[in-house]
């Protein structure tokens, strides 16, 4: 039995989640929890279902079963726009920058879903480069800038749970470091972050805990301070 303290502190709770693309069964009973203010990663080899788990939380799969609760609200069965309004900000793995929108329009696109989001000035403070380029077409930005835009635009909305799908994929080390700094600042501001990450070294500098996925399931949880001790096991999971 979880005690009262953990009940109130758990922000996201995923239980026995099954997900499908058409006929193919991709998630086979995913279980994990994220507490308020935590940074938690989903790690695992390519194709284990990390992206699918995030898409399932956003209600974007053809079909899903099980339970996803955020602050006590059941998300399974809700439309994606209703799910977003529970207070979730989503950074998809392809960054999702709109070519027909300027940088500024991309930034201003997601509607405010809750009070307490960052102001536009605060967002530009975190990402000064976006302010300089605000009149450019969204997809004219460099890969790193697009990634920053993808993160920046969900900070305005008041969402307090952020789902980030491989924000460092394909980026130069300097940019990865900048994004790491941003995520640390967001954690300090109290955001709760579920991070899908392949770059394990990067993840270990930010996260509180790591959930390991294999074949559409969460198979293990490793607290960040146990990483060294569990290094061998982890290497086996990730096949490195």
């Amino acid at each position, binding site marked *: 039995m979880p005690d009262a303290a953990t009940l109130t502190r758990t922000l996201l709770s995923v239980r026995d989640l099954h997900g499908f693309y058409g006929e193919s069964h991709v998630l086979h009973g995913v279980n994990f929890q994220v507490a308020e203010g935590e940074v938690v990663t989903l790690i695992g080899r390519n194709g284990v279902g990390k992206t699918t788990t995030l898409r399932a939380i*956003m*209600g*974007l799969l053809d079909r899903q079963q099980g339970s996803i609760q955020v602050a006590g609200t059941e998300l399974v069965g809700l*439309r*994606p*726009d209703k*799910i*977003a*309004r529970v207070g979730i900000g*989503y950074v*998809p793995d392809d960054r*999702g920058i*709109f*070519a*027909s*929108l300027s940088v500024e*329009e991309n930034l*201003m*696109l*997601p*509607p405010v*879903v809750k009070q307490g989001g960052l102001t536009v000035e605060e967002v530009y403070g975190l990402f000064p480069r976006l302010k300089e380029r605000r009149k450019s077409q969204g997809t004219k930005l460099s890969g790193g800038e697009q990634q920053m835009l993808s993160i920046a635009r*969900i900070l305005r*909305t008041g969402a307090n749970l952020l789902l980030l799908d491989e924000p460092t994929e394909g980026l130069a080390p300097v940019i990865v470091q900048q994004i790491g700094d941003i995520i640390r600042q967001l954690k300090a501001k109290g955001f709760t972050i579920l991070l899908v990450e392949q770059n394990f070294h990067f993840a270990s500098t930010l996260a509180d805990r790591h959930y390991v996925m294999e074949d559409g399931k969460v198979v293990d949880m490793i607290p960040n301070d146990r990483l060294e001790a569990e290094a061998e096991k982890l290497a086996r999971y990730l096949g490195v």
Partner: protein
Amino acid sequence: MMELIGIPPQALFGQLLLGLINGAFYALLSLGLAVIFGMLGVINFAHGALYMLGAFVAWLLFQELGVGYWPALILAPLVVAAFGVVLERTMLSRIAKMDPLYGLLLTFGIALVVEGLFRHLYGVSGQPYPVPDALQGGTNLGFMYLPTYRAWVVVASLAVCLGTWYAIERTKLGSYLRAATEKPQLVQAFGVNVPLLVTGTYAAAVALAGFAGVLAAPMYQVNPLMGSNLIIVVFAVVVIGGMGSILGAVITGFGLGLVEGLTKVFYPEAANIVIFVIMAIVLLVKPAGLFGRTT
């Protein structure tokens, strides 16, 4: 009388004006088609029938209720929009994820039903609709005579086209529309009610067709087949302009109207086919259309 390249200026400018007027209708209709295609992925074959519906609603308002041109210019598009909401919610939304061919067949069927209904009720002979008092008469410009109503049609169409362009390209709502055209799922995952946006877009785009129908009513007779005669050319215009671009649809619409008018002056035999010839050439040279994006 001065002559240009052997053509009396009266004839030249007269045909240019006619071309501009045809272009006004091409622009209004192809604009709506482009928006619908972008958002719903549907080639809206019912567009011509909805244009006809706009004209008929104006005519019925006048005949049955004595409601004049100016209120009809607002009311008829609203009626067409309401009909569009019903079409989208009850039928088009159900085929949203299917092959585009289903949308084409469905809207083609809707066009046949709507046109058949009006043919059954009112026959194929046209119904006259009076030019409103304020737009009677015309002006002699020296080089040509300009009927006031025709000038109004060009100005009103241009204004509505530019207004639509502004709404799509420069407003917040327009940015939702553009974004949802690209990645509807992601826009919905940001908290935007995309299904509602799709319905609203369809309603607004068919309202433009209804508006064009009201504009046409005093100039041409109100006839159940007026839409199907026009829509084939409008499809060619859309193919030439490219499906993706709003401004492209407007420019192509007016431009091709003018080209058609000029052809009537210089080589009248080809006037009816010039747009299709251009379409064939564009398809060969730039299949995505003049303003289309190749992705």
